[in-house]
């Protein structure tokens, strides 16, 4: 178990300076995510045009993994349409939950999140933002839990 696999430089960087941090007002859709065990909370707000995420922001508090995951996710999905976001979600989900899943080339810097899979108790930290985005896109106002 090597901490450097979990706390890679790109993750520490996004934790220190989160991108797309804040809140869109008005937004076309939004959702709240909450991880009761560690107290992570985040709010996602999204602007949509046709089926495309034209702008997105997140705000909230959480551990380095959940903040970095939210920050990198927002960067990655901005400008993408629903089908592309769904494809990305499936890839991330597969990488996080399968120890030996190959890491797809198109993940880019999101591949850094793969280090989490060697730390099973931290997987839900990395996946919180993604589940919250799913909820926002499903226009669900219910808080999302990864417990």
């Amino acid at each position, binding site marked *: *178990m090597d*901490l450097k696999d*979990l*706390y890679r430089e790109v993750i*520490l960087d996004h934790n220190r300076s989160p991108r797309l941090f804040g809140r869109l007002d008005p937004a076309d859709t939004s959702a709240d995510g909450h991880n009761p*065990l*560690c*107290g*992570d*909370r985040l709010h996602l707000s999204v602007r949509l045009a046709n089926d495309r995420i034209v702008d997105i922001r997140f705000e909230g*508090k*959480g*551990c*380095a*993994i959940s903040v970095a995951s939210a920050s990198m996710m927002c960067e990655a999905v901005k400008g993408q349409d629903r089908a592309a976001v769904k494809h990305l979600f499936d890839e991330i989900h597969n990488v996080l939950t399968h120890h030996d899943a190959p890491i797809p080339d198109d993940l880019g810097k999101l591949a850094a999140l793969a280090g989490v899979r060697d*730390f099973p*108790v*931290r997987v839900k*930290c990395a996946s919180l933002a993604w589940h919250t985005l799913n909820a926002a896109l499903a226009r669900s106002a219910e808080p999302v839990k990864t417990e």
Partner: protein
Amino acid sequence: MNASPRSDAAAGYDADRVWRDFPILRREVHGRPLVFLDSAASSQRPASVVAAVDRYETYHHANVHRGVHLLSQEATELFEKARERVRGFVNAASTREVVFTRGTTESINLVAQSWGRTNLKAGDEILLTALEHHANIVPWQLLAQQTGAVIRVAAMDRRGVVSLEAFSAQLSDRTKLVACAHVSNALGTVLPVREIVTLAHARGAVVLIDGAQCVPHQRVDVQALGCDFYAFSAHKMYGPTGTGVLIGRERLLEAMPPWQGGGDMILTVSFEKTTYNVLPYKFEAGTPNISGVVGLGAAIEYIEMLGIDRIHAHEQRLLATATARLQRVPGLTIVGTAPEKAAVISFTLDGVHPHDLGTILDAEGVAVRTGHHCAMPVMEFFDIPATARASFACYSRDADIDALVAALGKAREVFD
């Protein structure tokens, strides 16, 4: 209570020798020696407890209070010997006042459902404190929903102290029950329970004390405290999980209806009428956790062998040392700074979320609890999502504090 680092009672306490009594502490985690600082969540067991449980399972097991055959007699004798040991350990007036449960949580639920539903009505008040564990909040909320009783909360200050003034401010003639921790699991605060009992009794209220975090760390005398109910768990005092105790005042237990129905709690059953068994069996429906109770008896024997006052002095010395060392760690804030504390230190480290801290310390072999410690109102009060918590036990050593401080340095390294 003596918090002095040079307490006489700790003189000659050989922590290394105590440490060697706990086989699990010799193992490695992630290729490093285990440094176990999570005893407030669950303590480890000495070899003598493991052996007592093993001996019972291997040679003496049968159901208790049932058979005329030898094994049943032996099992019953071991079970009841443990009850007498528990009685003596907390100085209960009689073994009729010692009820075995699954743990502190079940003990509290028993009182809420049996005593509470019988004695509370709409408008009556249940008084808790701001630092309670969820297990001493939720059973009362359920009871309040069932009876229309109202929950009041005695406030704490920024140190995590519940003062007698804050307690009295919420106490009234409507208060029918007071439920409070003896020691806070999240902050370490020792509450002035003796004075709380006196104040509550003056208003005619019944008092339950959640002693889960106190019993392994300092001498408890339930008669001297004067409380009506006292609850604790075996697994926080070097015994097995799934076993706990409710000490109850005999007069109250006598008047209470059974909580659960089943075997062992009855004298006669027909389909028209059941005659309940005498105390404490009235509250022990079904086959109990016999090996757990045997293990609890062995755990108390172990504590008594070390001496609870010597354990207390040892832990207080570690608390003083660890507090001083941690206060010197840059960016570290101790949450819970009551003048009288058990050896529990909750803390946060600037720029490192407690959950990240937990992972990094774990990689260094140091096991601490991170999270809200089943005390979300406490976290809310301090406006933090979580803390890291180091807690000490009879087997903790100065070297554990060194390892903790070094691992915190490592966390700083990763995040800077």
